[in-house]
């Protein structure tokens, strides 16, 4: 039964992507998609227009949703294994708070001072700032939590709370300084969006998914044994400190990259691994790759809703993932109450 889950999820992902490609401001039915790809004969005038819509707007956006969903869900599964807690998510390593602070700083300070000096901010400035912010806050947190080569997971958790509170204070200050338009920009960034997807953005974050796919098989066994506790994992032959370091660097880079492109998208990293654990069990060998698949499918679906529900306007995708994710999560929790214990 379990071995069927990855292929089924792959089919779900491909179906979701195919359906997403047909839906939008300009509806393109399946037949015309095949024609646009040159796989079937079609009306030449429509083919060119469809191809333009697909290639320059819809496909990069779907690709972005797949990559970001995969990154967030796999990172969530890694964090839950590392913290031995089903409620952990990538935000715990300080990624979100650092990225949000840096993004808001770029929106407010960058806009106010650089623009008034006549310098136009390049489009890449915001994601780059967010990525640097994410990495910087994780590195500070890592330094705080590490003493004599040993990283304390508890220190990471508590230090993370302090860093998040500080970052929040900074964010509040920036909100206080911001004008109405900047305020709106900050707010929308905090809710996440995949709008403005380009192949350049896809190319920028695709390497992170490739790197993640490479490393996951090597950390899966260690994360399984870590479930017994750090000491027991060491007894069973795991280089625990190296494993923790690898996970933190991996999650900071991968989740940081995802957040920097899309803003903060909640719930994917939390719900997806949780759901899969109920379905296929907690072993990370299967959990990590399937989480990436399901996260990708979920974000493609959520993004399709985000860009069509309020068309021609777009809903922030964070709203959609929370609206889908939170009730579903509650349903799972209620159904599994007995297993969770008193």
């Amino acid at each position, binding site marked *: 039964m379990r071995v069927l889950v990855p292929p089924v999820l792959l089919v779900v992902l491909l179906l979701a992507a195919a359906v997403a490609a047909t839906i939008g401001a300009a509806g393109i039915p399946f037949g015309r998609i095949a024609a646009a790809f040159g796989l079937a004969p079609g009306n030449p005038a429509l083919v060119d227009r469809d191809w333009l819509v697909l290639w320059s707007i819809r496909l990069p956006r779907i690709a972005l949703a797949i990559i970001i969903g995969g990154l967030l869900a796999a990172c969530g599964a890694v964090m839950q294994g590392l913290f031995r807690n*089903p409620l952990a998510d990538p935000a715990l390593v300080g990624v979100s708070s650092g990225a949000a602070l840096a993004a808001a700083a770029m929106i407010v300070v960058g806009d106010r001072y650089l623009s008034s000096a006549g310098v136009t901010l390049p489009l890449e400035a915001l994601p780059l700032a967010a990525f640097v912010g994410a990495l910087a806050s994780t590195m500070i947190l890592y330094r705080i939590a590490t003493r004599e080569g040993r990283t304390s997971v508890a220190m990471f958790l508590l230090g993370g709370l302090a860093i998040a509170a500080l970052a929040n204070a900074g964010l509040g200050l920036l909100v206080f300084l911001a004008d109405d338009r900047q305020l709106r920009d900050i707010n929308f960034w905090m809710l996440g969006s995949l709008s403005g997807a380009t192949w350049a953005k896809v190319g920028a974050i695709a390497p992170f998914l490739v790197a993640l796919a490479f490393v996951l098989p090597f950390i899966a066994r260690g994360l*399984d044994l870590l479930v*017994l506790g750090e000491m027991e994992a060491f*007894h069973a*032959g795991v280089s625990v400190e190296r494993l923790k370091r690898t996970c933190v660097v991996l999650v900071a880079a991968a989740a940081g990259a995802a957040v920097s492109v899309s803003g903060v998208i909640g719930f994917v990293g939390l719900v997806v691994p949780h759901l899969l654990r109920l379905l296929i069990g*907690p*072993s990370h060998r299967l959990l990590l790759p399937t989480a990436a698949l399901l996260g990708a499918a979920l974000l493609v679906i959520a993004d399709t809703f985000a860009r069509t529900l309020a068309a021609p306007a777009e809903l922030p995708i964070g709203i959609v993932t929370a609206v889908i994710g939170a009730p579903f999560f509650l349903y799972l929790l209620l159904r599994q109450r007995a297993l969770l214990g008193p």
Partner: protein
Amino acid sequence: MNPVLVATSIAVRIGAKTLLDDVALSLGPGEVVALVGANGAGKSTLLRVLSGDLVPLAGSVRLNGRTLASYGPRALAGHRAVLSQSVSVAFPFTVAEIVRMGAGDGRGRRIDDLVEAALAEVDLGNFDERAITTLSGGEQQRAHFARVLVQLACGEATHGPGVLLLDEPTANLDLRHQLDVIAAAKSRAARGVTVVAILHDLNLAGLLAERIVVLNGGRIDSDGTPDQVITDAMLERVLGVADAVGRVPAEGTPFVLPHAARKLLPGKP
């Protein structure tokens, strides 16, 4: 015969408190040693030093002639297996998955057999598909003991008999399963595995080990056969319990003596 595990002048201090002071211990292949002593006497600390968890402030531990520090975690896991006092599992792995973790990356028929045999040995034969989080404390402890036995067997297959370190392996178990654990440890020792076990039950200690090491205030108080070590003087000195050895409880009080079940154990009749 060359000693397998040698600890020399071990000292461990945390802050101003001395946990171990000038402890030396040498264990041969197939030797079974019970560590006894009061709570806080340093038994678990010594076991953590022997397992490589804790680097002592002074002194060193050598395993087959090499210092523990010179082994990587994976190499060390091939030479020694450790059962910790209480292990809490964060996610609902099945019992079979937990026991299989002892085999590391190992796969295949031989590992399947090892897992099955270990489960049978701890009397969890029908529990393999149960989530470990739904088991009682004693059952969970038996599952972890089975996992440790699998790790020991996998190490034995590549490096020969290793070292088995047990921290209160019988603490949560009923009498029957306490005896199972003692029997399993003794049968490993008969194959050449060196066993060190922390035990509070002095009767069980005498049943398991030919050698008892008593710790008191972080130092070795006495070291010898059960006969030499378990004396009224030692109990008075170490535990503050006087006149307890060899006395029958008050008239009319039923009591259970594990020695009566000696026929359940391998080896000596």
